[in-house]
């Protein structure tokens, strides 16, 4: 603690070279190795071809990596000040797709930007953490204890969550609620308040159930008993478990997965890509990937704990937990531990927005690392 006091005296202005030096290259290597797993699996999903997925994914990774470096170098105070703006942009885009859907252009969840199709709901996951981190950065610990102070951040979570739920995208809505909740938790909101909200949520379940779409209810029912309807709704999860199980310890070999290559496995290039990996590379391959992810989580925790500003801490750990939730929900889903919700496996599943937002998030995490010693006032001014 004493050492912190020594640096407290001023906010260092870092040179560009210092910033480059400060970039966590180990983390970048880790992310790249994970992304390479993805390239390999997309190559396999296309029966041993770069087209149509692997090649495009590599390009996206390169672009996202560049974006990440830029985001990392940008001063964290800028991100603090921009937090609400980013959130607002995300929110407007979210409303835009919602309005467009309402006026009859179809239930599109994305906006076509030419190079990528931007899914505002994906962007929202990072923007929400950013906005909440800023909000709680500005609160003292006493203020956090005041329920009225929690109305604003609760709205920050609930408004986009409801919009996403209306799309309807249950998976992303849950992600928003959970990653928002995590920032609340880290900010020091009392545990009984969480208990209250969870209790209220449980009480609201019958009401929610009544308002669910048929396919959403089916997914939950199917999760509870997937083998009840092997040709219908339970098909995906059953085939996924068969693929995993038949992979065994050492897997069937790269490019040799039968479940995936004979198309028994649905969505093998997106949501079910982990299944394909574990089928072809076995328990060993699956655990290796999970270990890589775990190393990323550890990096995230380390960075957040070493940050000397509350914003960086909240942001860093918010991003890390968000990333964890992505990984956990996706893998738990394909293993049949939780219902099938449309959550991709970050850095591996084919998809532009997911890649972009995940790397944007890591950019923010690295910015928090590079600027870990910057002291930030309640409203972003350096003191």
């Amino acid at each position, binding site marked *: 603690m004493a050492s912190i006091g020594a640096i407290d005296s001023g906010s260092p202005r870092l040179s560009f070279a210092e910033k480059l030096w400060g970039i966590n290259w180990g983390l970048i290597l880790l992310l790249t190795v994970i992304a390479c797993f993805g390239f390999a699996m997309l190559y396999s999903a296309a029966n041993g071809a770069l087209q149509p997925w692997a090649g495009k994914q590599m390009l996206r990774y390169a672009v996202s990596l560049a974006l990440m470096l830029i985001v990392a170098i940008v001063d964290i105070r800028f991100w603090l000040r921009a937090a609400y703006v980013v959130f607002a942009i995300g929110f407007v885009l979210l409303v835009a797709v919602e309005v467009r859907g309402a006026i009859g252009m179809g239930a599109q969840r994305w906006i076509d930007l030419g190079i990528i199709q931007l899914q505002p709901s994906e962007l929202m996951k990072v923007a929400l953490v950013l906005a909440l981190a800023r909000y709680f950065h500005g609160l003292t610990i006493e203020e956090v204890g005041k329920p009225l102070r929690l109305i604003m951040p609760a709205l920050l979570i609930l408004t986009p969550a409801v919009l996403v739920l209306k799309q309807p995208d249950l998976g992303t809505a849950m992600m928003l609620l959970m990653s928002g909740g995590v920032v609340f938790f880290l900010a020091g909101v009392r545990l009984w308040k969480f208990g209250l909200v969870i209790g209220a949520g449980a009480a609201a379940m019958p009401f929610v159930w009544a308002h669910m779409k048929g396919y959403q209810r089916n997914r939950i029912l199917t999760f509870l008993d997937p083998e009840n309807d092997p040709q219908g709704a339970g098909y995906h999860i059953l085939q996924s478990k068969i*693929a995993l199980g*038949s992979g065994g310890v050492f897997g069937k070999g790269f490019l040799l997965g039968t479940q995936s290559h004979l198309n*028994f496995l649905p969505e093998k290039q997106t949501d079910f890509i982990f299944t394909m990996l574990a089928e072809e590379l076995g328990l060993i391959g699956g655990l290796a990937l*999970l270990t890589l992810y775990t190393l990323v989580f550890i990096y995230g925790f380390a960075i957040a704990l070493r940050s000397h500003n509350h914003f960086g801490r909240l942001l860093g750990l918010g991003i890390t937990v968000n990333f964890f939730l992505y990984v956990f929900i996706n893998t738990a889903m394909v293993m049949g531990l939780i219902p099938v919700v449309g959550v991709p496996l970050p850095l591996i599943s084919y998809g532009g927005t997911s890649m972009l937002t995940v790397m944007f998030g890591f950019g923010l995490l690295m910015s928090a690392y590079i600027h870990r010693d910057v002291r930030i006032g309640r409203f972003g001014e350096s003191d």
Partner: protein
Amino acid sequence: MQRENQRSKLFTRRALLLAGGQTALLAALAGRMYYLQVTQSDRYTVLADENRINLRLLAPPRGRIIDRFGLPLATNTPNYRVVLVAEQAGEIDVTLDAIDQLIGLTEADRRRVQRDIKRKHSFVPVVVRANLTWDEMARIEVNVPELPGVMIEEGLSRTYPFAETAAHVLGYVAPVSEKELNGDPLLELPDFRIGKSGIEKQHDLELRGKAGTSQIETNAYGRVVRELARVEGTPGKEMVLTLDMALQDLAARRCAAEQSASCVVLDAFTGDVLALVSSPGFDPIAFGAGLTAVMWRDLTTNIRNPLSNKAISGTYSPGSTFKPMVALAGLESGLITPETVVSCPGSFFLGNTVFHCWRHGGHGGMNLRNAIKNSCDVFFYETARRLGIDRIAAMAKRFGLGSKLDFDLPGERPGNIPTRDWNLATYGVAWQLGETISAGIGQSKVTTTPLQLATMAARLITNRAVVPRLTRREGVMQPVGLQTAPDHPESLFPSLGIPPANLKLVVDGMTAVVNEQGGTAYGARIREAGLEMGGKSGTSQVRHISAAEREHGVRKTKDVPWKERDHALFISFAPVSSPRYVCAVVVEHGGESAGGGSAVAAPICRDVLREAQLRDPGRRVPDAEFVATRDDPAGPSARRS
């Protein structure tokens, strides 16, 4: 500063809590992976294989049917058909429309496809149209990429090079009907055919063979990716018939000249059926392709009964062809002797009942030999009166009449040889002596099939319990020279135990029937020396001649409707010097005169037996020229036209 520290501490505490939670969740993931990929791995491996590996049955080629010399009578020819797997096709109607555009489909085709789809297991292909021309096949093949679930399959269809000639012997194959499905998946294969009559039915299981299997890997849409393993099936067994197709052909043509007739030719030494004809015939190929309703109605309502094999299932009163039985019973009982003379005044009185001889003027004094030669009815009325029905029946049964011969075709009928016990048991009334008198000339309740008559003739000339057979277990006849001994063992059939002198007397009488002036079939004799035949004619009354008719003279045959005319029968053997071949012919409603059998049936026997001896199918192969023309599939039809 204090507050900031407090906040930082709280954050760190909660971050560690989160880290703990995440570790627990990650451990859960790892545990789940271990459970799925190690503990449950075997189970899921099986499921994965079940997913991708399909077992497909390979229909075995149906066994050929060939004649005694190896001439193919039923074979398989390749055909192309377009099949549809409903589960892969998506919208069935759309797919059928597309096929319709290419090769044209009838409404009936569409209905059948829809019905079959409901009937068959999923992923079993259903035939959309079979027997495609090369052109049609190519048109579908080119468009297969746009037609999901549609495939061209090459199959085998059953063909009968001789068409109608041996239709009743061979039978036919046809699609499996609903109630024939017994769970054997082979029966569910598209256009699988099973035997429905004749040899095809009798030996269906042998002819079918054993199905092979092909392990194929399919993707989630059921498309075949590759074949993993293949177990070839066993082709159906080849059946060798005793038929001599050249003789069969001649007999069929001779019978076809009559409205409705049947003919059986046997090698009396071996029991081999050399020819077995029932006319009119039918086209067996039409059944395999599927009959139209009109064709079926025509076949079933035709009064000449083309679908019935009259040679084994037609039962006729044997008429005078039964007289040898009465004669042998008489001789064996001692109630008549070769010297016994009965005077024939043209009629026979039993109490007040008159039994007429076919010759109104009578034959005068008749001994046995002459009674057979002239077919004198009165002689046999008297013999039958002395014997009683039971003695006659006992003799007839020794010659194979009145019961089935366990013949190798479905539909054989036993005919009937009445006894007093039988009559009492069946009708509850005592047998009348008058009936015995009628039975003496093969009328009354005596009925026989043409096959039984031929068998009787074979037993007459061999004194052995000859049993006709249709299949040669020993295979195709090996070509042997004329000088080589016949390939039959002398003791093939057990002896009947008839005193040879008695048989000789009867056979001698039958020789006289054909070869002596005044014999009833003298007109139908074979003139070539050494080939002469012996025989016995018969006329089988179909209607009862009423007293009124007899009063005014029996109506002329041409005034009687065809269906009411008498049947003409003839049994025969050749050569008379050392009899070997026998032939029985029944021409339904062919009795044009009192000597009906002699006039209509005997000439058929003459031609067939003459040919049989010239060809001598018991010993040598037919000349190569005949075989050559028949091997050519265009042969028979080309010859017919």
